[in-house]
């Protein structure tokens, strides 16, 4: 029995991560070669007999393989997209076999800068190569092979995860039937790259960064990572959402100091500290760089329609009205390129106040959209035992 009522109805229950080891070297887009690597992943639901019900969830900047469920009864938090994934939830694990993984270069178990470099028997640190969205999708396809899945029913992702879903349809058109691209874009705008650069500079100029080899110095560039996260948080929320949540509320009387006097400040500091305590700075650099570099139209003179010419998957594209970091206009570019190629696509522009973060919120209409689309996906009916 996989369901456990103690963690709430509709939950996938208590879950455990698994690790897939890949002994064959992986050549990355940069030309660098990873001699071997691990991918840590979780699965929910049951793979059916004809293996036609697998759905891959691609995570965004700071996501992990822990998409749904809890690790123990006492686990305070469920997985990062638990509101979406579970029995009778929009991504229904009674129907689908759902896979979440930690991307290459991550810091939650998959091979990344914190891992040991087998050649030196030291942590990779600065020597870990820059990975790209294309590399991630390539490694995800290897994970699908490892799980015996030839074709995914769907790939789903928000933000940077949406770029991976899009890339799947470009790189492996025959291996993915549906792509759900949420709060994403076909590439980053200059403004987005600028935010990423400020975040990276905060990390790189932290005196404890040591060029990325801080593990060897037994320190962490916490201050840099903290500022990077604070900046990110500002851009993931809308002005209205921040105003509604914090406004100009003060924690007490004005002290004429530089302490966290406004509630907005203390929220940012809390988020920054929390993140700096659990995330790896080298991973953060690489995740933001992967965002910057992704541009499938680059080799087609900027023509996204040409870049999507070989795509066969059916698409659901979703954006949120208050998302200024990955604005609806960027999603509409993807929709236009698909329409230009006469592909099957639906597009929803969800009225939401939460900015970019809206894609993680359990808004009823948003979830109805995903539920309706996912319901329409056909899978084989014979379930393996």
């Amino acid at each position, binding site marked *: 029995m996989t369901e456990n009522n103690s963690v709430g109805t509709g939950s996938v229950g208590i879950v455990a991560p698994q690790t897939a080891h890949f002994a064959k070297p992986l050549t990355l887009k940069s030309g660098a070669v990873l001699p071997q690597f691990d991918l840590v992943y979780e699965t929910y639901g049951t793979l059916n007999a004809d293996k036609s019900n697998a759905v891959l969830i691609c995570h965004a900047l700071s996501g992990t393989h822990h998409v749904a469920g809890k690790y123990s009864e006492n686990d305070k938090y469920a997985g990062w997209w638990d509101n979406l994934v579970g029995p009778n939830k929009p991504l229904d694990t009674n129907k689908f076999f759902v896979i979440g993984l930690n991307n290459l270069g991550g810091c939650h178990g998959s091979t990344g800068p914190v891992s040991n470099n087998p050649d030196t028997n030291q942590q990779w640190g600065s020597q870990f190569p820059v990975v790209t969205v294309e590399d991630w999708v390539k490694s995800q396809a290897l994970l699908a092979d490892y799980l015996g899945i030839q074709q995914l029913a769907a790939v789903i992702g928000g933000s940077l995860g949406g770029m991976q879903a899009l890339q799947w349809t470009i790189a492996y058109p025959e291996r993915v039937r549906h792509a759900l691209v949420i709060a994403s874009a076909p590439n980053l705008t200059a403004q987005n790259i600028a935010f990423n650069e400020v975040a990276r500079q905060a990390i790189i100029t932290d005196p404890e960064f040591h060029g990325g080899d801080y593990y060897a110095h037994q320190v962490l560039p916490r201050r840099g990572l903290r500022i990077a996260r604070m900046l990110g948080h500002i851009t993931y929320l809308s002005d209205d959402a921040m105003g509604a949540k914090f406004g100009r509320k003060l924690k007490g009387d004005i002290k004429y100091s530089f302490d966290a006097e406004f509630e907005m400040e203390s929220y940012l500091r809390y988020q920054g500290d929390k993140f700096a305590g659990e995330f790896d700075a080298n991973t953060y650099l690489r995740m933001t760089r992967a965002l910057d570099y992704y541009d499938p139209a680059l080799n087609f003179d900027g023509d996204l329609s040409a870049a999507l010419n070989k795509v066969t998957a059916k698409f659901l594209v979703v954006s949120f009205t208050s998302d200024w970091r990955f604005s609806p206009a960027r999603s509409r570019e993807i929709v*236009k390129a698909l329409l230009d190629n006469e592909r099957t696509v639906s*597009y*929803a*522009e969800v*009225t939401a106040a939460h900015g970019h973060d809206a894609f993680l919120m359990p808004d009823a*209409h948003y979830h109805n959209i995903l539920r*309706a689309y996912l319901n*329409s996906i056909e899978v084989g009916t014979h379930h393996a035992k």
Partner: protein
Amino acid sequence: MQNNVNITNSTQEFRQDFAIISGWVKFGSKVLDLGCGDGALLQFLRSGLEVKGYGVEKDDANWLTCMNNGVNVIQMDLEDGLSGFEDQSFDTVILSQTLQAMHNTEGIVLEMLRVGREVIVTFPNFGYWRNRVQILSGNMPVSKILPYQWFDTPNVHLCTINDFDEFCKNHKISVLERKVITDGNQIDFMPNFLGNLAIYRLKAN
């Protein structure tokens, strides 16, 4: 030429313009239905003519109904034009009983002619005699096809068949075909007086 074709369907809510529209859409063609509502027209065209269809719909609830009906649906506001669609990229662009509710009426017709090789527009004829009678008796018309009261109507640009003919002439739009019906019956005599629904097939000149 079919006269007095009865296109009402007793078993389901069947819009009286659907049969004529489907007669103008080619088998297997690419169709864009603007303001597609619950997607019923596209479902009808897909089942009968195997069209590659897309709907455009602004309303959240309608969008969901389309999705649940298996209709491809793009959520956008027609008042913003059709900037996401290439010139002449659809065989037929349809605006079914939505023209009268548009603010940017002129703009959307020109956009449709840009995107579609052919355009089908349908609208309730304000010149229909029953509307005239209601006006003469001193009230704004309320009927099955114009079900709203003056204070809650979304219809801001009602026009007569004469008005629309003039509009096409002034904008150098070719009217390839025009059909006028009342309760499913085709009206050839005094259409601007006796017809309550006008259906046009247009092309850019």
